């Protein structure tokens, strides 16, 4: 077995894990509130002003940045392996790798830009 340098998969797995933790703790309540409770009127929806007030706070922006960037890497890693295993498309290795992590990087960039320029 060739002793190559240890791959950087460790970093990708770490991002996957971190994204998984963030997604596990935070995403359910967000979907419940913004996807169901507010649109269906189960709970009073926050006003535009209140949300803008929240979003202007730096700590909230950091929270939202983490919420919208690291889980993307969780998706990228998991989806990449699902395509490898589920669809057996290993021969499209590089394409899948680029699309997945590239997509995550793109999303992270968009999130950073949006939150930086939030009024």
């Amino acid at each position, binding site marked *: 077995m060739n*002793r*190559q340098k*240890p791959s950087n998969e460790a970093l990708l*797995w*770490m991002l996957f894990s971190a994204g998984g933790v963030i997604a596990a703790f935070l995403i359910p309540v967000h979907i419940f509130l913004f996807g169901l409770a507010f649109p269906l009127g189960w709970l009073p929806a926050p006003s535009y002003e209140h949300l803008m007030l929240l979003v202007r706070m730096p700590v909230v922006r950091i929270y939202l940045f983490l919420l919208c960037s690291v889980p993307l890497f969780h998706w990228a890693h998991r989806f990449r392996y699902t395509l*490898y*295993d589920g669809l*057996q498309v290993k021969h499209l290795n590089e394409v899948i790798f680029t699309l997945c992590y590239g997509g995550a990087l793109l999303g992270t960039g968009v999130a950073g830009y949006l939150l930086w320029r939030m009024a």
Partner: protein
Amino acid sequence: MPDKTILEIARYSPEQDTNPHFQTYEVPVYKEWVVLDALNYIKDKVDGSLTYRWSCRMGICGSCGMMVNGEPKLTCATFLSSCGGHKIRLEPLRYFPVVRDLVTELSDFLLKLKKVKPWLIRRDTPPLSQGEFLQTPEQLVSYKQFSMCINCTLCYAACPVVGLDPVFVGPAAIALAQRYNMDNRDQGAGERMAVLAHPEGIWGCTFVGECTRVCPKHVDPAGAIQQYKLKAVLDWMKRLLPPSHSHKEGQGESLNR
């Protein structure tokens, strides 16, 4: 008059067949019979050409693994009465080449096992006068579960990644590597990490968890692999530190000593 049950067994002979076909046999069912007893009955009294592996008949040698109704099982540890229904389907272990009937070809697995160096690796050899290596009960407990592996390869038959990726090292091999890594007498963790921290090593595992579910000795290879992944991450982070830290990795990350 004992009950009867039907065994539907995959037969394959390279001289006659291109693909396996199923042959049915009727066997008596006794309360204390396991699937292996039924197989032996068939070979003794019905069809001597049936080929399968078995040895200890008590769940310690790991020879008699096969797919029983689609589940990887040790035939010496599977009671006929627990197979449900009166038809039992026997096939060779999944994801291995089939040599004949129920016998699989294991040389690939053995090569992978050898690759992870499942033996105590010492960088230094203390003189005999120093006496034996000491190990407390706590130190033993830290790796004992992984040492229970009997190399039955049921986990390989359960793991989809093994089937999809022929170069994936597989659950048992990684669990055994971890068994030696956690042994305080071993100094080879770095060597094994160099072999396993690759896509065909631990990173190929997607934590399906089937390997742990089917393991007859409760080794929990999935847990071993996830622990190994954490360790690999720590190792990788250490590599990013200044050289005074990273040059130590060659000596192996012995947990004690």
